[in-house]
């Protein structure tokens, strides 16, 4: 598996007026939490955020307006990587299966429809691909048409499973997976 030093966001078009920065430390935690809490129905605790952000800080990317003084993010993506066969001593590195997971993706309402969500997802996917992931998965509410369009129509995710009443708000979810070449 590649290390973070070796990955980079290549060939992903920039968005004018928006900088994409990595998560650095807990000073950004509150902003990330606010962004995500506003949009996602599922309530996550601070530990859930820390679980992602501390273990995979390089897979948390923030979108920040270039002209912003306080550098408060207006979009973010938070991801992780699961390794199958990691606990098995006999499994060789080559036999391990790395699967990326997009845990949270949020963009402030007034900045939507400008490609920031796609750009964030693309960057995260590319990093996970560079780090050896064979596929990337996520769950999204069946009613979240915008998210479904983004993942299916723009990124090529396919529906893998229906998860009935998956969320605490009783909504069903689809498990989507993007198979990486």
């Amino acid at each position, binding site marked *: 598996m590649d290390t973070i030093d070796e990955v980079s966001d290549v060939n992903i078009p920039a968005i004018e007026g928006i900088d994409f920065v990595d998560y650095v430390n807990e000073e950004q935690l509150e902003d990330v939490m606010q962004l995500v809490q506003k949009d996602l129905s599922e309530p996550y605790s601070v530990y859930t955020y820390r679980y992602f952000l501390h273990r995979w800080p390089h897979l948390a990317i923030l979108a920040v307006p270039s002209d912003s003084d306080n550098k408060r993010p207006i979009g973010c993506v938070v991801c992780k990587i699961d390794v199958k066969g990691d606990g098995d001593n006999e499994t060789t590195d080559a036999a391990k299966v790395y699967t990326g997971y997009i845990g949270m993706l949020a963009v402030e309402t007034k900045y939507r429809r400008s490609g920031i969500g796609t750009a964030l997802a693309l960057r995260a996917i590319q990093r996970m691909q560079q780090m050896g992931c064979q596929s990337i998965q996520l769950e999204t509410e069946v009613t979240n048409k915008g998210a479904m369009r983004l993942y299916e129509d723009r990124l090529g995710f*396919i529906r893998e499973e229906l998860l009935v009443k998956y969320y605490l708000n009783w909504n069903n979810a689809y498990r989507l997976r993007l198979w990486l070449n």
Partner: protein
Amino acid sequence: MSSMSSNTPDSEDGYVDITHLIQRCVTESLSCSHPFTPLVPPCSLPVIAGSEKIINAEKDGGDTALMIQGSSPPTTSADHADDGLHNIEGDKSAPSLTPIDMREAMTALEIGDERMDCCEIPIIASEKMASSPSPSQRTIPPRIAPLHLSDGTMSPFQSSSSDMSDLKPTRPSSKDSTSSTNVPLHLQSSPCPSLLPYWETLSIVSSSSSHQILPLLLLQLTFLEAYIGTNNGGSNAAETLYCMLWCHDGVLADMRDKLSTNAQTSPLDEVTVAQWILFASSIGIVRIAEAVRWAVVNADIYEEEDFGVAMHGADDTGNDNGDNDEQSLSQLPSSLPSTMRFCPLLKRERAKGSETMSSIPTYQADEYIDEVWDTALKHLFEYASSREVTDGNEHDIIRALEIILRLQKSFYHSICKLSELNDQNVTDFTEEAKKKSRETVTLLNELNTSSATASHKLVETDGTLRSVGDERLDSLLHASFDPFVNRRLLGNAPVRKARFCNTFKVIDSLTRVVSEIEWAVCDVILEGNTLGRIMRMLENNSSRGIGGAFPTTAKPKTDDDSEAPFGNSGLAIENPVGINVLSRSLMLLNLYFDDKLLGQYDFPDMIGQHMQQLCAVPEALLQSAFPGCGHSWLVRLAKPMYDTLKALCFDQHRERTFTETFIFPAFASLQLAATGVDESFRLEHGLDSQTTASYASNYVIVQTIRLMERHIGIGIRIGLYPKWYDLSTAYWYRDFLLSALLNIRGSIEQERFERKAMELRIKLEEEEEEKKRLNAVGKKQISKKGKKKGKKKEANAETVREAAIEAAARVSAEDFEDRLEYTYLTVRRHLCRGIVRYIAALRQAGLLSEPPPSITMFTSHQTRFEKRFDSFAILPQPQPLSFEDYERGSDFSAVRREDLVQSAGDCFRSCKGVIERLLQVVVAEAVEDIDITKKRRNDDLYISVRRDEAIALTKVCVANSLFLHKLSMTPSKVNEVSLEFTAHKEYCTLNLK
């Protein structure tokens, strides 16, 4: 990966360590996860520097402790040393702590979020809260929730300014209670004190000094529905469970006290009719909840997590039923979670009535609960007759109360009977359960039309409990059935908020749940007599469980048009995903027991019969003594075949996953084993491999393809193929599978027919030979004695052959069912083929937008195709189709569009023709006197397709044919193509607009 550093907050920087809180929280939650054990106060932990502030905040009742910024979770566990939390490892100021499990800590912290506190523990009525009702302090996290409601919590319907002192206690508080003084009722021995202020003034009809009991019973039904209801499907279980087991705990405990401590002084006279009814209903609800949980937990349906014993915390193994006079009554309250702890007097009287203790049957608890119900009903009847009720309203109320108690009893017994089946009682008990479920449905229907029920609206449109406007009644209802009372007992698990339906919806939902017990469980057990029939019945049930062929209408039918069951909360009834969790569990529980399928049939034998019926497998193969053949082979088949039946009992989305994970791998190895069996059979009988069919393999492959085809079909139903290019692959693959299945079954059928004809011809010829021989002998004897007059005409060879064919063509009832299934396969193949060609025609006309190039940015179409059907790759037969196969098979570029349209139209027309023939043999339910080898009624349990399904498919054919016609006539006028599943859930129409 490179490490990153971050500023580590410490107490000196205004941050505090909350580890001790986490520890305390975990300790408390662990103790709370066993609600039936006596409550213990939270462990007193050493106060850690900097933590006083938090504790004080807690005492103040606010959740300010949860607003700590920058505090990091502890990472003292070695397992988590590299969890990226290295930033706090260097914090030397942190005190040395007892290692705790990070997952527990994580769970503990999860509730820190206000929204995570889904059950909304009511606010504390402290002075501080009343004076500063900050929005952030509206809820109290469960981890610091009071040990019991008597700590001062109040009804959510009361504003913070309401005076709780209005609620005058009807029973004195316990002397040694340390709780606050505004507690109306606090039973010392109750494991979970309940607020029930008007317990002593309950009455049948409402008056200024009494409170009507009917709303309480209706609310109990509402909770029961939320617990097991069809639309909720058990998702409320974790939350409502405690309402079931603990609601009216005060009532139960009080009745226990009355019935036990005052046993010498006619205790029954002290209990009013209303109290008897509420007691019986409460205890009934508890028993039903326990019976449901038992069925779900023991059925292994992968949905039992919500019903798990750990979640309930009850020791279900306690044999309280067998308790006798020697057991001290004083021990009962703390040790027995079951019903009988609440009515020891009844139990003792029952025991006295028996000649010996040993004569009490093992299910005597059922009889005791019957005793409670019967006693309540007896009191109700006495009440009604003593008052000579003339008021129609009161009469309706009394009847409604009677119905509720009766339906509880019937429902409970229908579940219990199906939970107690063994190979000796299976038929009797199942028939009894069927009778009880019908009885329950009848009672529910009557309740649905009762005017007494109509006057009570207990639930808001958003699924929350409703205020009835009467503050006292509200307090009573919500104290009695307080959904928050057990929130802390749920531990820190994130639990979705329980949703409730309005009364009529509750009755409707319960009616469906109970009806399902009859058709989804009892009918299968009673009528399923061959493997093929059982499979078809389970498939039908699975389809019926999701609402049949037609998608459910967008707006569900409600009792009040302005009132959706869940209002605008986004919880409108959607297409159900399967039969109810209770019926699924009961079916699985009884699918195989006492070493028999459905407790009645030897499973290997049944598989053997199915092999003969479906694949014309010779008897010799099933009786082979070769290793791995004969009976051993049938035994080898048993587990995978059981799993295929089991999968049919699941919700369809779970069935799909189960098939992928367990059944396909099992069938992959089964196919290899089947090859060996066929080879052994040929060797054993010296048969030629070229001319002898692979009987065992055929059977396994037929089952495999059936599973594969169903797998794709469910995928379409649950929306896994959203775009036309996804659907095209699905229908194309399905067409291939159906064709393969039809080919195999067709050739098997042909071979069976020929073999049967040959066997019959040989038999007839032998008979003719025998006749001739006998005639010849007779002639010799006659010639010796003298010639007999007249000469019998000899049948020629042609007549024999025709007679044999005629006899071979005769079908049994099950043959007819198989042929119906075969015809239905043909219908599906026509439809799949037609849709694929229709899509190709639309694509050729440029009316379908090509897949966006962006979807291949990270993956290719080939990978998408391969991964979609990846679960088939493990199977040796049929060999998985590749993307190249798909491209070749769906490439109609060389075909003119007109021809393509014509071809697609032909498919739909052929399909419609076959369906029309199907509709001629599947006749309406009312038709009498039919030959079951030629026709079947629509309600026949063994047929694979019903009229509504066939009609829905006809609609798909007609709609697509019409749009094809439009495409051929005026393609330029088509602006938009939309995929719709409004006619059928599995077969789309491509509408041209």
